[in-house]
């Protein structure tokens, strides 16, 4: 008990956000909450009047909601995948980032598939996907994979948090109603540590193939279709790489903000951002490689339908977005991440913001132009999101941020027991 008290005192910086709530919290949370509530109104509006309230039409039948779906699933990737890989490889510097990464994963994974609910013509019948399932449909594969991934990620986050919850239970008797049942009677005995170690080892290994499969299958929702520039074998790995890319960027951003707001400078040191920046640099190059390979292959051997989509992206009406994407995903972040002098906390954060914008644009450019240029010559579409779609997107981002903020008010954002263990090992 005394030992625990000492630990809690030592890491009071990590535990501070759980008890202290300043003006910054309220001026962030209240607007976010209002936006979040507004999106419920927008959804009710859309549900009542029909999907006609969005900017969709014929043949642009899959638009902003699908873009957000792919984008958020992408963000969900890095979290668990990174923390699992770093755990398996025993990379010591991972310790303070893993919790944040796992939280981002879980909430992004909750936010992503919600878009499908918005996108359905009859959202209330969503359950039919399970009761009338047709497994020939890639959407069903998607549904299965995402459910499996979500379950694994929640378990992953939770299991690795049990020792910390045990600590919190003893530290905050007022919140026993929450921490009591969640700690599962954690007392820190030898057998309990052994079980935890075994469980986390199994989860680490289990989560990697599930994570890879999720984004591969998300890409197959497009890759299995006949649309020009969707029907491509590169989509699986391209989406996985892109997902990890945007995921790491999201983690860096979240970690940097938490570092600043919760004053965690002694835990989240520049070295961590340097290392994450190096990972991000690798992914930047990989992103460029995949994009280059995809576009060159299309340009060199593409049929006339593919070329129509290609030109509309590169030189047509979507070209400003396309070149903005190249700028955000490669031209700006690459030099920032390549030099050690700019690979600082601020530098990597700036690069991350650009990468997140760029990756969102990439998802947009994968989905929209292909649908606007179908195979038959006569059907040409254009698309502009309506206020409903923008509201839903804003609400989704607000909800995502809100969830992370509220999480940080109830649970430590840095894994205390792992930091402690790390120090003892040294």
């Amino acid at each position, binding site marked *: 008990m005394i030992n625990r008290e000492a630990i809690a005192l030592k890491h009071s910086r990590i535990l501070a956000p759980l008890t202290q709530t300043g003006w910054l919290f309220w001026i962030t949370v209240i607007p976010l909450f209002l936006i979040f509530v507004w999106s419920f109104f927008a959804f009710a509006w859309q549900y009542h*009047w*029909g*999907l*006609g309230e969005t*900017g*969709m*039409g*014929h*043949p*642009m*039948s*899959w638009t902003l909601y699908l873009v957000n779906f792919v984008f958020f699933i992408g963000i969900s990737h890095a979290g668990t995948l990174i923390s699992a890989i770093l755990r398996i490889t025993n990379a010591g510097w991972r310790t303070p980032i893993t919790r944040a990464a796992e939280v981002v994963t879980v909430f992004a994974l909750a936010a992503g598939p919600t878009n499908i609910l918005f*996108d*359905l*013509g*009859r959202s209330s*019948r*969503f359950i*039919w*996907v399970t009761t*009338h*399932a*047709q497994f*020939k*449909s*890639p*959407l*069903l594969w998607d*549904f299965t994979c995402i459910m499996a991934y979500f379950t694994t990620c929640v378990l992953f986050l939770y299991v690795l948090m049990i020792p910390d919850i045990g600590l919190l239970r003893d530290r905050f008797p007022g919140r026993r109603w929450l921490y009591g049942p969640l700690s599962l009677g954690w007392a820190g005995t030898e057998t309990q540590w052994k079980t935890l170690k075994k469980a986390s080892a199994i989860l680490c290994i289990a989560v990697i193939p599930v994570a890879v499969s999720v984004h591969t299958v998300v890409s197959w*929702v497009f890759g*299995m*279709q*006949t*649309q020009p520039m969707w029907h491509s074998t590169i989509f699986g790995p391209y989406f996985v790489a892109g997902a990890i890319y945007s995921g790491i960027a999201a983690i860096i951003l979240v970690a940097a903000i938490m570092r600043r707001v919760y004053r965690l400078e002694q835990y989240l040191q520049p070295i961590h951002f340097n290392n994450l920046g190096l990972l991000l640099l690798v992914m930047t190059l990989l992103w460029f490689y995949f994009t280059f390979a995809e576009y060159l292959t299309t340009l060199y051997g593409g049929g*006339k339908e593919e070329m129509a989509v290609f030109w509309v992206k590169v030189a047509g009406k979507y070209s400003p977005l396309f070149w903005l994407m190249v700028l955000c995903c490669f031209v700006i972040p690459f030099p920032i991440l390549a030099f050690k002098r700019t690979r600082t906390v601020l530098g990597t954060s700036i690069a991350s913001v650009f990468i997140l914008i760029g990756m969102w644009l990439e998802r947009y450019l994968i989905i929209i132009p292909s*649908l606007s240029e*179908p*195979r*038959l*010559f*006569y*059907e040409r*579409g*254009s698309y502009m999101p309506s206020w409903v779609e923008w509201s839903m997107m804003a609400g989704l981002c607000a909800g995502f941020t809100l969830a992370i903020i509220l999480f940080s008010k109830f649970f430590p954002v840095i894994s205390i027991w792992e930091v402690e263990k790390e120090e003892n090992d040294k």
Partner: protein
Amino acid sequence: MIIWEGFSPTSQRERRCIGFNKFGVRSAEFGVRKKTDHDHKHEMNMYRWGMVIDLDRCTGCQACVVACRQENNVPFAGEKEVRLGRAKFWMNLITEVKGNYPDVEMHFIPIPCMQCGHPPCTTVCPVEATYKNPEGIVAQIYPRCIGVRMCISNCPYTVRYFNWYAPSWPEEYKRGRNPDVYKRRKGITEKCNFCLHRIRKAKENTKLEKRRIRDGEIVPACMETCPSGAITFGDLNDPKSRVYRLSKSRRAFRLLEDLGTEPKVYYLKEGQWDDQ
């Protein structure tokens, strides 16, 4: 309520139609069981509905478009919606102007659902709301559809339409709606089904008289109204039928044949069809 029973996904008849036996297990379709000679013979005895559209005869009058709208209760979209590309045309007439004055050529092409032999749209539906029925018609089970729209995005001919709003008609038009056709609601997909209700009606008659449907007995709305007689409909399995003969014509071609979707709508045109 024959129509209802046919469309209801839970009815025995429909389940067998989709290819399930009464225990809910898939039978012959999709390679669970190898096709035997008996199966093949059975398949040849079945109808396989197809359509031939003679582009050399088509005058571009759009009577087929109007007739189809009237027959199938296709709702009105209104000017604002049309601009967003939300007009529904189960039968759509595309016009194309080629060249500059004085060498101008005008092309018309009516586009219904192609009723593919290998439809890309049916397999992607997560709730099996669309399927190819044993007579080759790609049908939509309206009450089952939850509006995922993956069938729309996977249709290379873009002939599937979505109900963005609850369907609406001008007041004076409402009394003219066809009672034989299922009324769609907002949030579901709909498409041309070769006037399935007319096929059903013809079958009811022939069942009483214990004979096969004769060539030319079934007339879809678009064919019935076509003043130049450009549209022909019938059984592609029957070598004596008019559609069969026409589909083998040297003028015949199909849209996007290289995709391997095996459309059952044939077009006739002298010379090369150029879809650029």
